[in-house]
């Protein structure tokens, strides 16, 4: 394809070629920007056709409930993907956070009763784990997928170690209230998830830190020369991602009132898929809060629809795999001088 492009332009001058390339890129960008919205509309129409009461308040709340945990994960993950990195430790951190919080509050296996303090402690530990991942990546110059993969395995191991075989059941009243309580017909869980996402989005869009993340993702060398502390920003991003992964694990534990390592299983990959569908790019610099939100919404509607059609969950995973390969193929940038092996 590249050769064809070069052939057709061989008669043009360098300047014209450059102009042509810029125009091409602009067109691709435009397609990329509107494709997620079109997809969202298509998914909504499909949903409306296949489900009678798709637009009922009940179903809207249901979709919001289903997207709440992916939304919390995406809050941290969108920063990491904006950098062009990836965090494979999310599932492990989620599993650990869920298991450990179940261990700390009132439960059926020990006499702990830390309540809110326990939740705070777990969030702090998750943040520290994320920061450690970032630190190892920045200082030891290890590619993020490898360091976060190892970190994820360690955290999964730690999660299993917390409860040794029999998952802990939560008996805390606070967890009951949070999982069953509703405000205006919307579950507390959903409200918390949306609040976390909105805070994340505000930080990304309205602080110098958020701008720095965009800058690093777009061009790390240029960002460094404007005086941004690249290493520190990256560590902060990973700490944030660890924090949201921990929160997601806690929410998952609140939802199921059970602490086990598998709380995080298969949670990260759908969110990566969703963010990429929404217009993010694994090579960094593209996407943002709105596109992450649209992506998660599209993805939730898709899963909703597949479930409705009675598709087997394993087949759903395969479909996910195919979707992400297509989406990544369309969005990844191949011209950068980066190592994203």
């Amino acid at each position, binding site marked *: 394809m590249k050769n064809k492009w070069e052939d057709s332009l061989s008669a043009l001058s360098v300047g014209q070629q450059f102009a042509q390339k810029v125009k091409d890129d602009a067109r691709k960008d435009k397609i990329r920007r509107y494709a997620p919205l079109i997809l969202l509309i298509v998914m909504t129409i499909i949903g409306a056709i296949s489900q009678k009461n798709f637009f009922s308040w009940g179903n809207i709340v249901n979709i919001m409930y289903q997207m709440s945990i992916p939304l919390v994960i995406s809050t941290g993950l969108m920063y990491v993907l904006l950098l062009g990195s990836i965090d494979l430790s999310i599932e492990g951190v989620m599993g650990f956070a869920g298991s450990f919080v179940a261990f700390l509050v009132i439960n059926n296996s020990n006499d702990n009763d830390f309540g809110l303090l326990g939740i705070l402690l777990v969030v702090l530990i998750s943040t520290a784990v994320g920061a450690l991942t970032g630190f190892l990546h920045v200082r030891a110059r290890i590619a993020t997928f490898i360091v976060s993969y190892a970190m994820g395995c360690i955290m999964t191991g730690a999660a299993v170690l917390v409860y040794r075989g029999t998952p802990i059941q939560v008996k805390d009243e606070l967890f009951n209230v949070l999982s069953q309580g509703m405000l205006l017909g919307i579950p507390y869980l959903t409200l918390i998830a949306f609040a976390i996402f909105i805070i994340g989005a505000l930080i990304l869009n309205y602080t110098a830190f958020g701008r720095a993340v965009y800058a690093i993702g777009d061009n790390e060398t240029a960002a460094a020369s404007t005086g941004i502390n690249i290493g520190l920003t990256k560590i902060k991003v990973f700490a944030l991602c660890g924090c949201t992964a921990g929160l997601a694990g806690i929410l998952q534990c609140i939802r199921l009132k059970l602490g086990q390592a598998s709380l995080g299983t298969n949670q990260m990959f759908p969110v990566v898929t969703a963010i990429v569908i929404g217009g993010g790019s694994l090579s960094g610099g593209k996407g943002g809060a709105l596109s992450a939100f649209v992506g998660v919404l599209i993805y939730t509607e898709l899963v909703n629809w597949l479930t409705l059609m009675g598709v087997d969950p394993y087949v759903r995973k395969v479909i996910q795999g195919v979707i992400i*390969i297509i989406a990544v193929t369309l969005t990844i940038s191949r011209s950068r001088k980066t190592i994203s092996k």
Partner: protein
Amino acid sequence: MANSKKSFHISDFSKYMCLVSIVLVFGVFSVIIPNFMTPYSLQNMMTEAAPLLLMAGGMSFIIYTGGIDLGAGAMVSCTCVLSGVYVAQFGNAIIPIMLAAGILMGLTNGLLVTKLKLPSFIVTLCTMNFWSYIALNLCPNGSEIIPMDKRFMVQWATQKVFGIPIMFFIALAGVAVLYIFQQYTVYGKAIYGVGANVSATRLAGVNTDMAQISAFVISGACSALAGALYAYKLKSAVPTVGDALTLTAIASVALGGTSMAGGRGSVLRTALGVVTITGVTSGLNMMGVDPLWKDIVIGVILIIAVCLNTDTRGRDLIVK
């Protein structure tokens, strides 16, 4: 950037890391545990290590190219299930069939990585879903035991010759083949070239896509063979057997001193890494440490080994 003033680079240490760690592990454990080095325990370790040797040996080639295969464990599960379920039908012809299946799986990964120019970790994370789908679909109720009357077909693999399990001989033969491939063939050299510098290698007239694809194919074939060995060893089809193996295989490669950025390393070093990891896991096991610690220990080993291996001198490249 932190240690630019030091004259001794940590990465110099990585050359000797595999030897140091193997001596350390076996030394310490044979002091702590009296019967660590007994023939019986060594035989056990060999059976443990055999499939892992193949898997990590194959994985090394992908890591030479600077890529990674996060789906290798799922591939092992998939082929373990396939061979466990169909060995009754095909007999020992299942091994070449599995090799072919592994080549096909590797080819899928390789084509996706090279033709669509995607990062290998994302491709293998996706294809991992396919392999585990096959495994779980064929074994919906957990593991399936090979029927008693067909056991005679798989019995030979766990027999011992001169006190050494036949499986271990197979693994050694596999490592030897991989070593010859890596050392004496053009493709072997090309694979290193891809990891060290893709554009330079391409300019030198090497078909880099082909080299990368062959790395994935080799790894696929090795993982498939490892899966078949697991089926023979456990005498059943276990759809979750490979879950923890990806981490162990990557850690073995890293412990051998192979750089995750690609371009250097050796299958023999990986083999030493496998021996060390097997020593650690069986040692901890014999000390009565909860097996739940295994993943944590191996994860920590992986991080330390990768830290030591990373070439901190190549500063002009941006690591994501």
